[in-house]
């Protein structure tokens, strides 16, 4: 596949990355965003879409999800490209001094400027602390259910108490030969309909519901054969299992960016506050992922950083052009 070429590769499609498209667009620079999550918005859509935010200038109160929706509308004239559901793995220099960013799925992106707006990092599944868990990854342990058919006629143990654990347990009863759901408490926090359905399936013996319990051990030879479940009062229960699917949500990790040769301090990228450039010329870091004296992890600060960064990116891409700041009130928006 041909590499995607653009002016600015934006790593991270959270609010800060999205607003970069707008400020770059005013300077006639095109952008392409890459994010590991399957949708734009970063933690605003992934973690707290229904939470109100009160410190966006001009909005006394706005829901995080609505802010993302507005940003998408605001940047629409500048036709940004998106590579979603893929994680940036490597960065290298091309012969003509540009950057090539390649994702875990092999998608190649080329641009003279890279803006890292990665927030807290990539959202990865939370992995339970079971000693030999990694030995069985893709050999019976999966953190995401991609294709339910994969579990046809198998014995599946699901762990977790949220919506995804409930919904998948319900769904898998139609496919798997045996479904067990392991949960820390007797109460579930999922949607009431799903909780009710799970209880009904449990009373009909379609789901082995094992509460006040957690999975503490895995066994098998090359492939998972069984799990050990620790019950709060009854001790250890052993259970045959072809698959163990722990569903404990996502948590952010800095990920491969940590190996890009950038100056990292406490999981954040050090930048020069003149233009939010990193120690590598042409790579900038904006928003929650950067650090500098006086840094505040606020969306509004990220917007400011994105704006100044774009001016510097313009000068890097067009060193001979003198740019005069234009006001949108005077000129309106000229999209691509």
């Amino acid at each position: 596949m041909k590499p995607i070429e653009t002016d600015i590769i934006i790593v991270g499609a959270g609010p800060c990355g999205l607003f970069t498209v707008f400020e770059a667009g005013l300077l006639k620079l095109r952008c392409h965003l890459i994010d590991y999550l399957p949708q734009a918005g970063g933690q605003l859509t992934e973690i707290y879409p229904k939470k109100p935010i009160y410190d966006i200038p001009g909005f006394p109160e706005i829901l995080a999800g609505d802010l993302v929706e507005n940003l998408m509308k605001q940047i629409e004239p500048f036709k940004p490209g998106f590579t979603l559901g893929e994680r940036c793995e490597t960065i290298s220099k091309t012969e003509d001094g540009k950057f090539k960013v390649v994702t875990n799925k092999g998608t190649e992106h080329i641009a003279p400027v890279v803006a890292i707006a990665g927030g807290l990092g990539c959202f990865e599944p939370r992995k339970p602390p079971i000693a030999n868990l990694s030995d069985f990854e893709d050999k019976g342990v999966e953190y995401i259910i991609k294709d339910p058919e994969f579990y046809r006629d198998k014995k599946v143990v699901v762990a977790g108490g949220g919506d995804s654990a409930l919904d998948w347990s319900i769904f898998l009863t139609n496919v798997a030969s045996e479904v067990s759901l392991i949960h820390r408490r007797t109460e579930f926090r999922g949607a009431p309909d799903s909780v009710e359905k799970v209880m009904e399936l449990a009373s009909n013996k379609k789901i082995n519901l094992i509460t006040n319990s957690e999975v503490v051990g895995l066994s098998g030879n090359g492939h998972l054969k069984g799990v050990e479940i620790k019950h709060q009062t009854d001790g250890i229960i052993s259970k045959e299992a072809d698959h163990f699917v722990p569903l404990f949500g996502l948590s952010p990790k800095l990920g491969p960016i940590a190996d890009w040769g950038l100056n990292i301090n406490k999981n954040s990228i050090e930048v020069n506050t003149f233009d939010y450039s990193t120690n590598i010329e042409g790579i900038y870091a904006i928003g929650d992922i950067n650090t500098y004296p006086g840094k505040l992890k606020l969306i509004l600060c990220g917007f400011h950083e994105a704006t100044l960064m774009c001016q510097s990116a313009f000068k890097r891409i067009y060193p001979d052009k003198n740019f005069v700041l234009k006001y949108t009130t005077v000129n309106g928006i000229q999209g691509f």
Partner: protein
Amino acid sequence: MSLINVTIIDREGVEHKIEAPTDINMNIMELCKANDLPVEGTCGGMAMCASCHCYVESNHDIFNRSDAEEDMLDQAFFVEANSRLGCQIKLADELEGLVLRLAPQ
């Protein structure tokens, strides 16, 4: 300013004795961050990440967890009967002498 004494035991077992203000609307997660203890506070204090998960080691009866906190603890690991999310413990005068231990990451 009103101050109470709080002890935080870090993941290496080191005790940190901290004078904590009760009059500036601060919580335990923020107290840890302000004192450079290894607490991420990823979600900012919304009970949505469990990076401030800790154990109450003193006899303070502060286990009135909200639904949101219980829900988040469902996604955390190493959860015990005395588990709390630091961001959901607001510093108050009645917490004088509080001892907390940070949960493993």
